[in-house]
Protein backbone atom coordinates (compact mmCIF):
# COMPACT_ATOMS: atom_id res chain seq x y z
CA UNK A 1 0.00 0.00 0.00
CA UNK A 2 1.20 3.48 -0.85
CA UNK A 3 1.08 6.02 1.93
CA UNK A 4 1.60 9.77 1.84
CA UNK A 5 2.58 11.46 5.09
CA UNK A 6 2.31 15.24 5.46
CA UNK A 7 4.89 16.72 7.80
CA UNK A 8 5.75 20.19 9.05
CA UNK A 9 9.01 21.75 10.17
CA UNK A 10 8.47 23.53 13.49
CA UNK A 11 10.64 25.47 15.97
CA UNK A 12 12.19 23.19 18.61
CA UNK A 13 10.48 24.76 21.57
CA UNK A 14 7.18 24.78 23.33
CA UNK A 15 7.75 28.40 24.31
CA UNK A 16 6.86 29.93 20.98
CA UNK A 17 7.61 33.64 20.66
CA UNK A 18 5.31 35.87 18.69
CA UNK A 19 6.28 38.98 16.78
CA UNK A 20 3.70 41.50 18.11
CA UNK A 21 3.81 43.60 14.94
CA UNK A 22 3.24 40.88 12.36
CA UNK A 23 1.43 38.41 14.63
CA UNK A 24 3.59 35.60 13.21
CA UNK A 25 5.94 33.14 14.87
CA UNK A 26 9.50 34.26 15.54
CA UNK A 27 11.67 31.58 13.91
CA UNK A 28 15.06 33.31 14.05
CA UNK A 29 17.55 31.72 16.40
CA UNK A 30 15.33 28.73 17.16
CA UNK A 31 16.49 25.34 15.84
CA UNK A 32 13.95 23.49 13.72
CA UNK A 33 12.66 19.96 14.15
CA UNK A 34 10.04 17.74 12.56
CA UNK A 35 6.73 18.31 14.32
CA UNK A 36 6.69 15.47 16.92
CA UNK A 37 3.16 14.27 16.01
CA UNK A 38 4.32 14.02 12.40
CA UNK A 39 7.11 11.68 13.49
CA UNK A 40 4.36 9.49 14.95
CA UNK A 41 2.62 9.69 11.56
CA UNK A 42 5.84 8.61 9.82
CA UNK A 43 6.29 5.72 12.26
CA UNK A 44 2.68 4.59 11.71
CA UNK A 45 3.23 4.68 7.94
CA UNK A 46 6.52 2.76 8.15
CA UNK A 47 4.87 0.10 10.35
CA UNK A 48 2.02 -0.32 7.86
CA UNK A 49 4.56 -0.61 5.06
CA UNK A 50 6.41 -3.33 6.98
CA UNK A 51 3.14 -5.27 7.24
CA UNK A 52 1.63 -4.66 3.82
CA UNK A 53 4.53 -3.59 1.58
CA UNK A 54 4.32 -0.52 -0.67
CA UNK A 55 5.90 2.87 -0.42
CA UNK A 56 5.95 5.79 2.02
CA UNK A 57 6.25 9.31 0.61
CA UNK A 58 6.62 12.33 2.90
CA UNK A 59 5.62 15.78 1.73
CA UNK A 60 5.99 19.15 3.34
CA UNK A 61 5.05 22.67 2.38
CA UNK A 62 7.56 25.27 3.44
CA UNK A 63 10.57 27.39 2.59
CA UNK A 64 13.68 25.73 1.06
CA UNK A 65 15.16 25.03 4.51
CA UNK A 66 12.20 22.71 5.24
CA UNK A 67 14.13 20.17 3.12
CA UNK A 68 16.04 19.42 6.35
CA UNK A 69 12.86 18.04 7.93
CA UNK A 70 12.39 15.79 4.91
CA UNK A 71 15.96 14.52 5.26
CA UNK A 72 15.26 13.67 8.89
CA UNK A 73 12.37 11.41 7.90
CA UNK A 74 14.37 9.94 5.01
CA UNK A 75 16.90 8.80 7.63
CA UNK A 76 14.03 7.09 9.49
CA UNK A 77 13.33 5.00 6.40
CA UNK A 78 10.84 6.94 4.26
CA UNK A 79 11.18 6.00 0.56
CA UNK A 80 10.60 9.33 -1.11
CA UNK A 81 10.20 12.98 -0.14
CA UNK A 82 8.81 16.07 -1.85
CA UNK A 83 9.16 19.69 -0.84
CA UNK A 84 6.31 21.91 -1.97
CA UNK A 85 7.76 25.37 -2.07
CA UNK A 86 6.91 28.61 -3.78
CA UNK A 87 7.11 32.27 -2.83
CA UNK A 88 3.38 32.53 -3.49
CA UNK A 89 2.69 30.13 -0.57
CA UNK A 90 3.96 32.64 2.01
CA UNK A 91 1.44 33.61 4.67
CA UNK A 92 -0.81 30.57 4.14
CA UNK A 93 -3.37 29.84 6.83
CA UNK A 94 -4.74 26.33 7.37
CA UNK A 95 -7.19 26.76 4.48
CA UNK A 96 -4.49 27.65 1.97
CA UNK A 97 -2.04 25.13 3.40
CA UNK A 98 -4.49 22.25 3.21
CA UNK A 99 -5.41 23.32 -0.33
CA UNK A 100 -1.74 23.36 -1.38
CA UNK A 101 -1.00 19.96 0.18
CA UNK A 102 -4.19 18.48 -1.29
CA UNK A 103 -3.24 19.75 -4.76
CA UNK A 104 0.19 18.14 -4.35
CA UNK A 105 -1.37 14.83 -3.30
CA UNK A 106 -3.76 14.97 -6.29
CA UNK A 107 -0.81 15.56 -8.57
CA UNK A 108 1.15 12.65 -7.08
CA UNK A 109 -1.86 10.28 -7.34
CA UNK A 110 -1.43 6.59 -6.44
CA UNK A 111 -2.12 6.59 -2.73
CA UNK A 112 -4.11 4.33 -0.44
CA UNK A 113 -3.74 6.35 2.71
CA UNK A 114 -2.75 9.82 3.87
CA UNK A 115 -1.47 10.23 7.41
CA UNK A 116 -0.83 13.47 9.32
CA UNK A 117 0.10 14.28 12.90
CA UNK A 118 -2.95 15.43 14.88
CA UNK A 119 -1.63 19.00 14.99
CA UNK A 120 1.58 21.02 14.79
CA UNK A 121 3.17 22.11 18.06
CA UNK A 122 3.58 25.71 16.84
CA UNK A 123 0.13 26.70 15.56
CA UNK A 124 -1.79 23.94 17.40
CA UNK A 125 -4.80 24.28 15.08
CA UNK A 126 -5.29 20.58 14.14
CA UNK A 127 -7.05 21.84 10.99
CA UNK A 128 -4.70 20.94 8.16
CA UNK A 129 -5.25 17.15 8.23
CA UNK A 130 -9.05 17.45 8.14
CA UNK A 131 -8.71 20.26 5.55
CA UNK A 132 -6.78 17.98 3.21
CA UNK A 133 -9.54 15.37 3.51
CA UNK A 134 -12.17 17.96 2.57
CA UNK A 135 -10.26 19.26 -0.44
CA UNK A 136 -9.74 15.68 -1.67
CA UNK A 137 -13.34 14.67 -0.75
CA UNK A 138 -11.98 11.74 1.25
CA UNK A 139 -13.19 10.27 4.54
CA UNK A 140 -11.21 11.43 7.57
CA UNK A 141 -10.52 9.83 10.94
CA UNK A 142 -8.78 12.04 13.49
CA UNK A 143 -6.83 11.27 16.71
CA UNK A 144 -5.95 7.71 15.66
CA UNK A 145 -4.25 5.64 18.36
CA UNK A 146 -4.40 2.34 16.46
CA UNK A 147 -4.62 1.60 12.74
CA UNK A 148 -5.36 -1.79 11.17
CA UNK A 149 -5.63 -2.13 7.43
CA UNK A 150 -7.50 -5.00 5.86
CA UNK A 151 -7.69 -4.79 2.09
CA UNK A 152 -9.48 -1.57 1.19
CA UNK A 153 -10.77 -0.95 4.72
CA UNK A 154 -8.99 0.66 7.67
CA UNK A 155 -10.13 -0.02 11.22
CA UNK A 156 -9.08 2.93 13.35
CA UNK A 157 -9.24 3.44 17.09
CA UNK A 158 -9.67 7.10 18.05
CA UNK A 159 -8.39 8.50 21.31
CA UNK A 160 -11.16 10.75 22.67
CA UNK A 161 -11.40 12.52 25.99
CA UNK A 162 -13.64 10.07 27.82
CA UNK A 163 -13.67 6.93 25.67
CA UNK A 164 -11.92 5.36 22.74
CA UNK A 165 -13.95 4.94 19.58
CA UNK A 166 -13.36 2.33 16.89
CA UNK A 167 -14.45 3.24 13.38
CA UNK A 168 -14.01 1.70 9.96
CA UNK A 169 -13.36 3.69 6.85
CA UNK A 170 -12.93 2.76 3.21
CA UNK A 171 -9.57 3.66 1.70
CA UNK A 172 -8.20 5.98 0.56
CA UNK A 173 -8.74 8.10 3.64
CA UNK A 174 -6.99 10.77 5.68
CA UNK A 175 -5.96 9.85 9.23
CA UNK A 176 -4.42 12.05 11.90
CA UNK A 177 -2.50 10.36 14.72
CA UNK A 178 -1.87 11.12 18.38
CA UNK A 179 1.48 10.59 20.11
CA UNK A 180 0.22 7.55 22.04
CA UNK A 181 0.02 5.54 18.80
CA UNK A 182 3.71 4.57 18.78
CA UNK A 183 7.28 5.50 19.61
CA UNK A 184 8.94 6.96 16.52
CA UNK A 185 12.04 5.04 15.52
CA UNK A 186 15.53 6.49 15.64
CA UNK A 187 17.29 7.18 12.38
CA UNK A 188 19.80 4.57 11.19
CA UNK A 189 23.32 5.10 9.86
CA UNK A 190 22.30 3.76 6.44
CA UNK A 191 19.26 6.04 6.46
CA UNK A 192 21.33 9.08 7.42
CA UNK A 193 23.85 8.40 4.67
CA UNK A 194 21.06 7.95 2.14
CA UNK A 195 19.45 11.18 3.36
CA UNK A 196 22.71 13.09 3.08
CA UNK A 197 23.13 12.10 -0.56
CA UNK A 198 19.46 12.45 -1.46
CA UNK A 199 18.32 15.38 -3.52
CA UNK A 200 14.99 16.63 -2.29
CA UNK A 201 12.51 16.98 -5.16
CA UNK A 202 10.75 20.33 -5.16
CA UNK A 203 7.35 21.18 -6.65
CA UNK A 204 6.18 24.77 -7.06
CA UNK A 205 2.73 26.28 -7.54
CA UNK A 206 2.77 25.60 -11.28
CA UNK A 207 3.85 21.98 -10.79
CA UNK A 208 0.82 21.24 -8.62
CA UNK A 209 -1.63 23.09 -10.92
CA UNK A 210 -2.65 25.34 -8.07
CA UNK A 211 -5.27 28.03 -8.46
CA UNK A 212 -3.43 31.24 -7.41
CA UNK A 213 -6.51 32.63 -5.67
CA UNK A 214 -6.29 29.82 -3.09
CA UNK A 215 -2.61 30.33 -2.27
CA UNK A 216 -0.63 32.17 0.37
CA UNK A 217 -1.78 35.25 2.23
CA UNK A 218 -4.31 36.21 -0.47
CA UNK A 219 -5.89 32.78 -0.41
CA UNK A 220 -6.16 32.76 3.37
CA UNK A 221 -9.52 33.77 4.82
CA UNK A 222 -8.16 33.74 8.38
CA UNK A 223 -7.24 37.20 9.61
CA UNK A 224 -5.20 37.09 12.78
CA UNK A 225 -6.31 40.15 14.75
CA UNK A 226 -4.09 39.66 17.76
CA UNK A 227 -1.92 36.98 19.35
CA UNK A 228 -1.04 37.23 23.01
CA UNK A 229 0.04 35.09 25.92
CA UNK A 230 -2.86 34.90 28.38
CA UNK A 231 -2.04 35.67 32.01
CA UNK A 232 -1.38 32.49 33.99
CA UNK A 233 -4.34 31.05 35.84
CA UNK A 234 -4.44 31.92 39.56
CA UNK A 235 -3.42 29.26 42.04
CA UNK A 236 -6.86 28.96 43.70
CA UNK A 237 -7.39 28.61 47.40
CA UNK A 238 -7.48 25.49 49.52
CA UNK A 239 -9.73 25.59 52.57
CA UNK A 240 -8.54 23.58 55.57
CA UNK A 241 -10.09 22.46 58.83
CA UNK A 242 -12.92 20.20 59.96
CA UNK A 243 -15.61 19.48 57.33
CA UNK A 244 -18.14 21.67 59.18
CA UNK A 245 -15.77 24.65 59.32
CA UNK A 246 -14.84 24.22 55.67
CA UNK A 247 -18.48 24.20 54.58
CA UNK A 248 -19.18 27.38 56.55
CA UNK A 249 -16.12 29.08 55.05
CA UNK A 250 -17.07 27.90 51.57
CA UNK A 251 -20.60 29.27 51.83
CA UNK A 252 -19.21 32.60 53.10
CA UNK A 253 -16.84 32.83 50.13
CA UNK A 254 -19.57 32.02 47.66
CA UNK A 255 -21.82 34.68 49.16
CA UNK A 256 -18.98 37.22 49.30
CA UNK A 257 -18.39 36.86 45.59
CA UNK A 258 -22.09 36.84 44.80
CA UNK A 259 -21.75 33.61 42.83
CA UNK A 260 -25.21 32.54 43.91
Amino acid at each position, binding site marked *: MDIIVCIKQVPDTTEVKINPETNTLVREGVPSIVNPFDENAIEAALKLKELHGGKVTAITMGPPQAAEALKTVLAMGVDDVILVSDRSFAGSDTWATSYTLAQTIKKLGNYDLIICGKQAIDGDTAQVGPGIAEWLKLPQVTFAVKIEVNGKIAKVERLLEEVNEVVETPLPAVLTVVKQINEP*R*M*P*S*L*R*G*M*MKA*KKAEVKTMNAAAIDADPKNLGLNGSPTQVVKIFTPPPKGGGEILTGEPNEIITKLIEKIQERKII
Partner: protein
Amino acid sequence: MLDYGLSDEQKMILELIKKIGEEKIKPVREKLDETGEFPWEIMKAFAAADLCGLYIPEELGGFGQSVFNFCLATEEVSRYCGGVGVTFAASALGSTPILLFGSDEQKKKYMPDIAAGKKLAAFGLTEANAGSDAGGMETTAKKEGDYYILNGTKQWITNGGEADTYTVIAMTNKSKGSRGATAFIVEKGTPGFDFGKKENKMGIRCSATRELVFQDCKIHKDQLLGKEGQGFIVAMKTLDMTRPGIGAQAVGIAQGALDESIKYAKERVQFGKPIITLQAIQHMLADMATQVEAARALVYACARMIDAGAKNYTLPASEAKLFASDVAMRVTTDAVQIFGGYGYMKEYPVEKMMRDAKITQIYEGTNQIQRNQIGLALIKESARK
Protein backbone atom coordinates in the same frame (compact mmCIF):
# COMPACT_ATOMS: atom_id res chain seq x y z
CA MET B 1 38.67 18.84 22.10
CA LEU B 2 41.24 18.29 19.38
CA ASP B 3 39.97 18.27 15.81
CA TYR B 4 40.48 14.75 14.53
CA GLY B 5 39.16 15.54 11.06
CA LEU B 6 36.15 13.26 11.33
CA SER B 7 34.25 12.44 8.14
CA ASP B 8 30.51 13.08 7.78
CA GLU B 9 29.89 9.38 8.32
CA GLN B 10 31.90 9.44 11.53
CA LYS B 11 30.00 12.49 12.76
CA MET B 12 26.75 10.64 12.03
CA ILE B 13 27.95 7.67 14.09
CA LEU B 14 28.54 10.01 17.03
CA GLU B 15 25.23 11.77 16.53
CA LEU B 16 23.34 8.46 16.54
CA ILE B 17 25.08 7.18 19.66
CA LYS B 18 24.47 10.47 21.43
CA LYS B 19 20.76 10.12 20.68
CA ILE B 20 20.68 6.52 21.93
CA GLY B 21 22.88 7.46 24.90
CA GLU B 22 20.67 10.34 26.03
CA GLU B 23 17.35 8.61 25.40
CA LYS B 24 18.07 4.97 26.18
CA ILE B 25 21.26 4.61 28.24
CA LYS B 26 21.40 7.57 30.64
CA PRO B 27 17.92 7.03 32.11
CA VAL B 28 18.60 3.34 32.93
CA ARG B 29 22.33 3.03 33.61
CA GLU B 30 21.96 3.35 37.39
CA LYS B 31 19.27 0.66 37.45
CA LEU B 32 21.26 -1.64 35.14
CA ASP B 33 24.27 -1.21 37.43
CA GLU B 34 22.19 -2.13 40.45
CA THR B 35 20.39 -5.15 38.97
CA GLY B 36 23.08 -6.36 36.57
CA GLU B 37 20.39 -6.83 33.95
CA PHE B 38 21.76 -7.37 30.43
CA PRO B 39 21.11 -4.27 28.24
CA TRP B 40 19.18 -6.01 25.45
CA GLU B 41 16.97 -2.98 24.74
CA ILE B 42 20.03 -0.85 24.15
CA MET B 43 21.75 -3.49 22.02
CA LYS B 44 18.59 -3.65 19.88
CA ALA B 45 18.72 0.13 19.46
CA PHE B 46 22.34 -0.15 18.25
CA ALA B 47 21.25 -2.85 15.80
CA ALA B 48 18.36 -0.75 14.47
CA ALA B 49 20.72 2.21 14.03
CA ASP B 50 23.16 0.04 11.96
CA LEU B 51 25.93 0.44 14.54
CA CYS B 52 26.88 -3.23 14.97
CA GLY B 53 28.87 -3.61 11.77
CA LEU B 54 31.33 -0.73 11.97
CA TYR B 55 34.35 -3.07 11.90
CA ILE B 56 32.90 -5.50 9.33
CA PRO B 57 33.46 -5.29 5.55
CA GLU B 58 30.53 -4.14 3.41
CA GLU B 59 30.30 -7.44 1.53
CA LEU B 60 29.57 -9.12 4.87
CA GLY B 61 26.84 -6.64 5.76
CA GLY B 62 28.94 -4.11 7.66
CA PHE B 63 30.06 -0.55 7.06
CA GLY B 64 33.60 -1.37 5.97
CA GLN B 65 36.41 -2.75 8.11
CA SER B 66 37.43 0.16 10.32
CA VAL B 67 39.10 -0.15 13.70
CA PHE B 68 38.87 3.63 13.95
CA ASN B 69 35.08 3.82 13.50
CA PHE B 70 34.69 0.96 15.95
CA CYS B 71 36.84 2.79 18.52
CA LEU B 72 34.94 6.02 17.97
CA ALA B 73 31.64 4.24 18.64
CA THR B 74 32.93 2.28 21.64
CA GLU B 75 34.23 5.48 23.21
CA GLU B 76 30.96 7.33 22.78
CA VAL B 77 28.89 4.41 24.13
CA SER B 78 31.23 4.08 27.14
CA ARG B 79 30.88 7.78 27.85
CA TYR B 80 27.32 6.90 28.89
CA CYS B 81 27.97 3.47 30.43
CA GLY B 82 31.11 1.33 30.61
CA GLY B 83 29.02 -1.83 30.99
CA VAL B 84 27.09 -1.18 27.81
CA GLY B 85 30.39 -0.18 26.16
CA VAL B 86 32.04 -3.52 26.85
CA THR B 87 28.94 -5.42 25.75
CA PHE B 88 29.10 -3.56 22.46
CA ALA B 89 32.85 -4.11 22.13
CA ALA B 90 32.91 -7.78 23.19
CA SER B 91 30.87 -8.78 20.15
CA ALA B 92 33.69 -7.40 18.01
CA LEU B 93 36.25 -9.28 20.10
CA GLY B 94 34.27 -12.50 19.61
CA SER B 95 33.88 -12.09 15.87
CA THR B 96 37.29 -10.64 14.94
CA PRO B 97 38.84 -14.16 14.90
CA ILE B 98 36.32 -15.11 12.20
CA LEU B 99 37.12 -11.95 10.22
CA LEU B 100 40.87 -12.54 10.49
CA PHE B 101 41.08 -16.32 10.13
CA GLY B 102 37.68 -17.57 8.95
CA SER B 103 37.12 -19.24 5.58
CA ASP B 104 34.80 -17.51 3.12
CA GLU B 105 32.03 -19.95 4.11
CA GLN B 106 32.53 -19.23 7.82
CA LYS B 107 32.51 -15.48 7.24
CA LYS B 108 29.34 -15.65 5.12
CA LYS B 109 27.67 -17.91 7.65
CA TYR B 110 28.36 -15.84 10.77
CA MET B 111 29.28 -12.25 9.99
CA PRO B 112 26.11 -10.83 8.36
CA ASP B 113 23.95 -11.64 11.43
CA ILE B 114 26.57 -10.10 13.72
CA ALA B 115 26.87 -7.02 11.47
CA ALA B 116 23.09 -6.61 11.57
CA GLY B 117 23.09 -6.93 15.35
CA LYS B 118 20.79 -9.97 15.17
CA LYS B 119 23.39 -12.01 17.02
CA LEU B 120 26.15 -11.20 19.49
CA ALA B 121 29.54 -12.86 19.60
CA ALA B 122 31.89 -13.73 22.48
CA PHE B 123 35.52 -14.77 22.80
CA GLY B 124 36.59 -17.65 25.06
CA LEU B 125 40.25 -17.70 26.02
CA THR B 126 40.59 -17.15 29.79
CA GLU B 127 40.38 -20.03 32.24
CA ALA B 128 40.58 -20.32 36.03
CA ASN B 129 44.26 -21.25 35.82
CA ALA B 130 45.07 -19.49 32.59
CA GLY B 131 44.80 -15.72 32.85
CA SER B 132 47.91 -13.75 32.01
CA ASP B 133 49.58 -17.13 31.41
CA ALA B 134 47.35 -18.33 28.57
CA GLY B 135 49.73 -21.28 28.14
CA GLY B 136 48.23 -22.85 31.26
CA MET B 137 45.05 -23.61 29.37
CA GLU B 138 43.33 -26.88 30.31
CA THR B 139 40.37 -27.01 27.94
CA THR B 140 41.01 -29.76 25.42
CA ALA B 141 39.74 -30.60 21.94
CA LYS B 142 40.34 -34.22 21.01
CA LYS B 143 40.03 -35.20 17.36
CA GLU B 144 37.68 -38.09 16.57
CA GLY B 145 37.04 -38.61 12.86
CA ASP B 146 35.41 -35.49 11.40
CA TYR B 147 34.79 -34.05 14.86
CA TYR B 148 36.59 -32.52 17.81
CA ILE B 149 35.42 -33.30 21.34
CA LEU B 150 35.71 -30.26 23.64
CA ASN B 151 36.09 -30.60 27.41
CA GLY B 152 36.86 -27.91 29.97
CA THR B 153 35.66 -24.57 31.33
CA LYS B 154 36.31 -21.02 30.11
CA GLN B 155 35.97 -18.34 32.76
CA TRP B 156 34.80 -14.70 32.86
CA ILE B 157 33.57 -14.67 29.30
CA THR B 158 31.95 -11.35 28.37
CA ASN B 159 28.56 -11.80 26.61
CA GLY B 160 28.57 -15.42 27.87
CA GLY B 161 25.07 -16.85 27.69
CA GLU B 162 23.73 -13.87 25.71
CA ALA B 163 25.85 -14.32 22.57
CA ASP B 164 24.99 -16.88 19.86
CA THR B 165 28.43 -17.21 18.32
CA TYR B 166 31.52 -18.11 20.37
CA THR B 167 35.13 -18.34 19.32
CA VAL B 168 36.89 -20.65 21.72
CA ILE B 169 40.55 -21.60 22.08
CA ALA B 170 41.29 -25.17 23.22
CA MET B 171 44.35 -27.43 23.36
CA THR B 172 44.45 -29.98 20.54
CA ASN B 173 47.95 -31.13 21.48
CA LYS B 174 49.15 -30.24 24.98
CA SER B 175 52.65 -31.63 24.36
CA LYS B 176 53.25 -28.92 21.74
CA GLY B 177 52.65 -26.15 24.28
CA SER B 178 51.57 -22.87 22.71
CA ARG B 179 51.65 -24.50 19.27
CA GLY B 180 49.14 -27.07 20.41
CA ALA B 181 46.16 -24.70 20.73
CA THR B 182 43.37 -24.43 18.16
CA ALA B 183 40.49 -21.98 17.67
CA PHE B 184 36.90 -23.12 17.07
CA ILE B 185 33.57 -21.49 16.36
CA VAL B 186 30.96 -22.90 18.73
CA GLU B 187 27.28 -22.08 18.41
CA LYS B 188 25.02 -21.59 21.41
CA GLY B 189 22.80 -24.64 21.73
CA THR B 190 25.45 -27.16 20.67
CA PRO B 191 24.95 -30.28 22.84
CA GLY B 192 27.58 -30.43 25.58
CA PHE B 193 28.00 -26.63 25.63
CA ASP B 194 26.52 -24.88 28.67
CA PHE B 195 26.95 -21.76 30.81
CA GLY B 196 28.01 -21.31 34.41
CA LYS B 197 26.66 -18.73 36.82
CA LYS B 198 26.63 -15.02 36.04
CA GLU B 199 29.43 -13.31 37.97
CA ASN B 200 28.65 -10.57 40.49
CA LYS B 201 31.15 -7.86 39.56
CA MET B 202 32.55 -4.64 41.00
CA GLY B 203 31.83 -2.63 37.84
CA ILE B 204 30.55 -2.97 34.26
CA ARG B 205 27.77 -4.81 36.04
CA CYS B 206 25.19 -4.94 33.27
CA SER B 207 27.61 -6.82 31.03
CA ALA B 208 27.22 -10.59 31.13
CA THR B 209 30.26 -12.42 32.51
CA ARG B 210 29.85 -16.19 32.65
CA GLU B 211 31.62 -19.51 32.38
CA LEU B 212 31.49 -21.52 29.17
CA VAL B 213 31.27 -25.18 30.17
CA PHE B 214 32.17 -27.90 27.66
CA GLN B 215 31.34 -31.52 28.46
CA ASP B 216 32.02 -33.87 25.56
CA CYS B 217 30.90 -31.10 23.23
CA LYS B 218 31.13 -32.42 19.67
CA ILE B 219 32.28 -29.82 17.12
CA HIS B 220 32.51 -30.57 13.39
CA LYS B 221 35.92 -29.92 11.83
CA ASP B 222 34.33 -27.29 9.57
CA GLN B 223 34.04 -25.15 12.73
CA LEU B 224 37.82 -25.00 13.14
CA LEU B 225 39.19 -21.47 12.67
CA GLY B 226 42.45 -21.18 10.76
CA LYS B 227 44.61 -24.27 11.10
CA GLU B 228 45.06 -26.78 13.87
CA GLY B 229 47.79 -25.52 16.19
CA GLN B 230 47.19 -21.88 15.21
CA GLY B 231 45.00 -21.09 18.23
CA PHE B 232 47.45 -18.82 20.04
CA ILE B 233 48.20 -16.87 16.89
CA VAL B 234 44.44 -16.41 16.39
CA ALA B 235 44.14 -15.16 19.97
CA MET B 236 47.15 -12.82 19.84
CA LYS B 237 46.29 -11.29 16.44
CA THR B 238 42.71 -10.79 17.60
CA LEU B 239 43.75 -9.10 20.83
CA ASP B 240 46.24 -6.85 19.01
CA MET B 241 43.41 -5.62 16.82
CA THR B 242 40.79 -5.18 19.54
CA ARG B 243 43.07 -3.71 22.22
CA PRO B 244 42.62 -0.13 20.95
CA GLY B 245 38.88 -0.75 21.49
CA ILE B 246 39.52 -1.25 25.21
CA GLY B 247 41.58 1.95 25.11
CA ALA B 248 38.56 3.64 23.52
CA GLN B 249 36.26 2.25 26.20
CA ALA B 250 38.60 3.69 28.84
CA VAL B 251 38.70 7.09 27.10
CA GLY B 252 34.89 7.08 26.99
CA ILE B 253 34.53 6.28 30.70
CA ALA B 254 37.07 9.01 31.54
CA GLN B 255 35.36 11.56 29.30
CA GLY B 256 32.02 10.73 30.90
CA ALA B 257 33.53 11.37 34.35
CA LEU B 258 35.06 14.65 33.17
CA ASP B 259 31.71 15.78 31.69
CA GLU B 260 29.96 15.05 34.98
CA SER B 261 32.71 16.77 37.00
CA ILE B 262 32.51 20.01 35.02
CA LYS B 263 28.71 20.02 35.26
CA TYR B 264 28.81 19.41 39.01
CA ALA B 265 31.57 21.94 39.69
CA LYS B 266 29.45 24.63 38.02
CA GLU B 267 26.39 23.77 40.11
CA ARG B 268 27.96 23.08 43.51
CA VAL B 269 28.20 26.21 45.64
CA GLN B 270 30.61 26.40 48.59
CA PHE B 271 32.06 29.51 50.20
CA GLY B 272 29.38 31.48 48.38
CA LYS B 273 30.36 30.59 44.84
CA PRO B 274 30.38 27.62 42.44
CA ILE B 275 33.41 25.42 43.17
CA ILE B 276 34.51 25.65 39.53
CA THR B 277 35.72 29.18 40.36
CA LEU B 278 38.25 27.66 42.78
CA GLN B 279 41.71 27.16 41.36
CA ALA B 280 42.09 23.85 43.20
CA ILE B 281 39.15 22.45 41.23
CA GLN B 282 40.18 24.09 37.95
CA HIS B 283 43.64 22.52 38.14
CA MET B 284 42.15 19.08 38.75
CA LEU B 285 39.81 19.52 35.78
CA ALA B 286 42.70 20.76 33.64
CA ASP B 287 44.79 17.68 34.43
CA MET B 288 41.84 15.40 33.79
CA ALA B 289 41.03 17.01 30.43
CA THR B 290 44.66 16.91 29.30
CA GLN B 291 45.04 13.24 30.19
CA VAL B 292 41.79 12.27 28.47
CA GLU B 293 42.79 14.09 25.29
CA ALA B 294 46.26 12.52 25.28
CA ALA B 295 44.74 9.06 25.73
CA ARG B 296 42.22 9.70 22.96
CA ALA B 297 44.93 10.92 20.59
CA LEU B 298 46.99 7.77 21.22
CA VAL B 299 44.00 5.44 20.73
CA TYR B 300 42.92 7.23 17.54
CA ALA B 301 46.44 7.28 16.09
CA CYS B 302 46.84 3.57 16.78
CA ALA B 303 43.44 2.73 15.24
CA ARG B 304 44.27 4.78 12.14
CA MET B 305 47.63 3.03 11.84
CA ILE B 306 45.89 -0.37 11.86
CA ASP B 307 43.34 0.81 9.29
CA ALA B 308 46.15 2.11 7.09
CA GLY B 309 47.37 -1.47 6.78
CA ALA B 310 50.25 -1.63 9.27
CA LYS B 311 51.61 -5.18 9.65
CA ASN B 312 52.84 -5.01 13.21
CA TYR B 313 51.04 -2.87 15.74
CA THR B 314 51.46 -4.81 18.97
CA LEU B 315 53.48 -1.99 20.54
CA PRO B 316 51.11 0.95 19.89
CA ALA B 317 48.06 -1.21 20.63
CA SER B 318 49.51 -2.11 24.03
CA GLU B 319 50.54 1.49 24.69
CA ALA B 320 47.06 2.76 23.83
CA LYS B 321 45.34 0.25 26.11
CA LEU B 322 47.83 0.78 28.95
CA PHE B 323 47.79 4.56 28.89
CA ALA B 324 44.06 5.02 28.35
CA SER B 325 43.05 2.60 31.09
CA ASP B 326 45.44 4.15 33.63
CA VAL B 327 44.02 7.56 32.67
CA ALA B 328 40.47 6.27 33.12
CA MET B 329 41.29 5.08 36.64
CA ARG B 330 42.95 8.37 37.63
CA VAL B 331 40.32 10.61 36.06
CA THR B 332 37.35 8.74 37.53
CA THR B 333 39.01 8.76 40.96
CA ASP B 334 39.51 12.53 40.67
CA ALA B 335 35.90 12.90 39.56
CA VAL B 336 34.74 11.24 42.78
CA GLN B 337 37.06 13.63 44.67
CA ILE B 338 35.54 16.69 42.98
CA PHE B 339 32.07 15.46 43.90
CA GLY B 340 33.30 14.98 47.48
CA GLY B 341 30.86 13.11 49.72
CA TYR B 342 28.24 13.16 46.97
CA GLY B 343 30.70 11.39 44.68
CA TYR B 344 30.84 8.48 47.09
CA MET B 345 27.06 8.06 46.92
CA LYS B 346 25.32 5.83 44.42
CA GLU B 347 22.85 8.61 43.67
CA TYR B 348 25.55 10.33 41.62
CA PRO B 349 27.07 8.69 38.53
CA VAL B 350 30.80 9.03 39.20
CA GLU B 351 31.33 6.23 41.75
CA LYS B 352 29.98 3.81 39.12
CA MET B 353 32.39 5.26 36.57
CA MET B 354 35.27 4.67 38.99
CA ARG B 355 34.18 1.04 39.47
CA ASP B 356 33.71 0.62 35.72
CA ALA B 357 37.15 2.08 34.98
CA LYS B 358 39.04 -0.43 37.12
CA ILE B 359 38.41 -3.39 34.83
CA THR B 360 40.03 -1.63 31.86
CA GLN B 361 43.39 -1.97 33.66
CA ILE B 362 42.79 -5.70 34.05
CA TYR B 363 41.06 -7.33 31.10
CA GLU B 364 42.29 -8.00 27.57
CA GLY B 365 45.74 -8.30 29.10
CA THR B 366 46.52 -6.70 32.46
CA ASN B 367 48.48 -3.47 32.31
CA GLN B 368 51.45 -5.42 33.68
CA ILE B 369 51.24 -7.75 30.67
CA GLN B 370 50.98 -4.69 28.40
CA ARG B 371 54.19 -3.35 29.92
CA ASN B 372 55.85 -6.72 29.29
CA GLN B 373 54.73 -6.54 25.66
CA ILE B 374 55.96 -2.99 25.30
CA GLY B 375 59.30 -3.88 26.95
CA LEU B 376 59.73 -6.85 24.64
CA ALA B 377 58.90 -4.74 21.59
CA LEU B 378 61.45 -2.11 22.67
CA ILE B 379 64.16 -4.77 22.97
CA LYS B 380 63.26 -6.18 19.55
CA GLU B 381 63.28 -2.72 17.97
CA SER B 382 66.64 -1.81 19.48
CA ALA B 383 68.15 -5.09 18.28
CA ARG B 384 67.19 -4.21 14.72
CA LYS B 385 69.14 -0.93 14.81
